[in-house]
């Protein structure tokens, strides 16, 4: 108790060094814990982006590419899927629902997702939430566009705004679909997923927009191909009995301009292609079997992935970057601890007098060593907790920024076992570092005896 009091008083006496040392430890701890929290946050955020989807299906290609392009709006898809193939699988008895996705256009860098209302019905993200409209309504007609909250904010769009989409993913300009403007009918509630940074239109909208365009995209990336419409001016809502291969499902053909395409089969009359589709099974246990069937499909080569498995593969493949970050933060921590060592060690000479006094008062060399270990331990403990506080402070500020700019929602959770492990490790390391000056003080004490050295 007395030793603790002496350690505290002595640290307070050297206020500036104490504060600097605590700060250097705090910074390294906050870096260590912060990197870990952000890493886990990104993982959770990614995992939370897609929930309840059992399979993601796209053209034959890499599973990472499919996952990234279809759900996270990153990179280009590998190819396209024939509408007939999609239809065939959508009717599979094991399949509960499907969400068709057609990509390839953009709006000021934001992805345009062509889909159906099935998206809003079946797409789930974190905590099994649905994507809903915060303002206005969901799309119905061919010219309707529903936009994510970030798109609305950055482009300052509101309900009723007219927008022109761009062919391809790059910028705006030569390949704008100027002849086919869309009207914002809804702004989606914040999801903290890439949905916030996306623009949603109907598949008919995609078709109408590409009407008359060359099937191959000009900028080289694989643009889903849209066959020329059989009925000029037709849209999904006006699918007529004249269309070949009438939908076999009951109640599929929506009559008189209701416009809401609730089932994929309503598009049966159109020969367009999709980029990918998301799929939910009736029984989750069937996912693996279905995946195998799709991956070995003879009619069209497909890649079907289980989102969770693909994510795990992704984390595995970027593991080295995480390891690199860990090594760097570890090195920063070592520098912080060395700073403390230097700070304590450099005071030893001027404290030799103090040690001799304590010795004359009957404090043993062990107690004097303990005093120094306690001081470094205190510095480490305070540094560790200040660092932890710093992490949460920065997270509080950074959370909103990360959400707005990257669509990554980093949850602020109480420190987990790994954080405590880090903190404990830092404190133990601090005490160990303190052993060096302590040992030196012990030696000095024995050597000096009651001689006061100046």
């Amino acid at each position: 108790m007395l030793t603790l009091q002496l350690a505290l008083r002595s640290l307070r006496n050297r206020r500036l060094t104490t504060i600097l040392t605590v700060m250097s430890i705090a910074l390294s701890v906050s870096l260590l814990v912060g990197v870990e929290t952000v890493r886990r946050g990104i993982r959770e955020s990614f995992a939370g982006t897609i929930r309840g989807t059992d399979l993601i299906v796209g053209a034959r290609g890499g599973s990472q590419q499919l996952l990234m392009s279809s759900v996270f709006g990153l990179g280009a898809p590998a190819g396209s899927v024939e509408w007939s193939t999609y239809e065939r699988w959508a009717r599979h008895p094991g399949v509960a629902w499907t969400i068709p996705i057609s990509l390839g256009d953009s709006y000021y860098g934001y992805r345009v997702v062509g889909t159906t209302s099935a998206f809003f019905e079946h797409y789930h993200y974190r905590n099994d939430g649905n994507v809903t409209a915060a303002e206005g309504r969901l799309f119905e007609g061919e010219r309707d566009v529903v936009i994510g909250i970030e798109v609305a904010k950055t482009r300052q769009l509101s309900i009723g705004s007219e927008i022109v989409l761009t062919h391809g993913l790059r910028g705006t300009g030569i390949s704008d679909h100027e002849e086919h403007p869309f009207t914002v009918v809804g702004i989606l509630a914040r999801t903290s997923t890439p949905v916030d940074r996306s623009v949603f239109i109907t598949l008919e909208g995609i078709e109408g927009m590409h009407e008359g365009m060359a099937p191959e995209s000009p900028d080289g990336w694989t643009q889903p191909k849209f066959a020329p419409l059989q009925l000029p001016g037709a849209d999904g809502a006006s699918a007529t009995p004249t269309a070949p291969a009438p939908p076999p499902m009951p109640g599929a053909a929506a009559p008189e301009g209701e416009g809401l395409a609730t089932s994929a089969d309503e598009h049966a009359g159109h020969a367009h292609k999709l980029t990918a589709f998301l799929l939910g099974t009736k029984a989750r246990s069937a996912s693996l079997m279905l995946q195998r069937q799709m991956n070995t499909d003879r009619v069209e080569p497909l890649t079907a992935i289980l989102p969770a498995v693909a994510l795990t593969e992704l984390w595995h493949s970027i593991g080295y970057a995480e390891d690199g970050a860990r090594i760097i933060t570890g090195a920063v921590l070592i520098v912080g601890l060395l700073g403390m060592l230097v700070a304590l060690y450099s005071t030893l000479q001027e404290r030799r007098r103090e040690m001799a006094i304590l010795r004359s008062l009957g404090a043993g060399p062990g107690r004097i060593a303990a005093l120094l270990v306690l001081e470094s331990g205190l510095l480490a403990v305070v540094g560790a907790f200040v660092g932890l506080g710093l992490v949460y402070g920065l997270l509080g500020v950074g959370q909103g920024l990360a959400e707005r700019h990257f669509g990554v929602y980093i949850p602020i959770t109480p420190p987990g076992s790994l954080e405590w492990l880090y903190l404990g490790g830092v404190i133990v390391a601090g005490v160990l570092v303190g052993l060096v000056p302590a040992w030196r003080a012990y030696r000095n004490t024995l050597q000096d005896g009651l001689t006061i050295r100046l």
Partner: protein
Amino acid sequence: MSDRPAAIAIEDLVFGYRPGREVLRLDTLTVAAGDRVFLHGPSGSGKTTLLGLIAGVLTPTEGRVRILGQDLATLPSSQRDGYRGTHIGYLFQLFNLIPYLSVTENIALPCRLHAKRRARIGGGLDIASEAERLAVRLELGQFLTTPVTELSVGQQQRVAAARALIGAPELIIADEPTSALDTDLRDRFLELLFECCDEAKATLLFVSHDLALGTRFHRVLSLPTLNTAGGR
């Protein structure tokens, strides 16, 4: 007085910091309990070394040092530290105080370190009140909460004396505590120290190279005369 064990009893003491280089060689040196002894010798004659041996900070190469009847060399080092803290009050020449503690905290330190010394505080006082009482006794009444770094040298030495006296240790050892004081201050300091030692019935071993002080002590010893190390 004679039924009490000698405060210091040294027999056939040999000490050297390094093997083969003797600093001290004393046949006998006895200080009776309650004595006020002055030990003098020139710089480098081994005065501080002898005090280190008496305080149990140094261990004799040969011979025995008994303090209040206890041979310190036979105690394990932690008990030796405890024995020193409990029975000996030590005064340095200069810089006696822990810079980050207040006046009363400095004075109270020995009692906080050693339960036996705390137990010897008389008059039902707690440590803080006893520290305060001694501070006032040593004319430091108005400096109780002053940071010790703001005290004059003379004031610092009186704080150190109060710390050596608290909890009534049997033996007070002073290693040239007056060498930094001017004559007036030195005399006043000695007077106070003597009074307090008498009140506490403590033995005083006072070391200095300043022979002029010797007249005020019961006994005057010359270390170079006693010390036969190096053929002297």
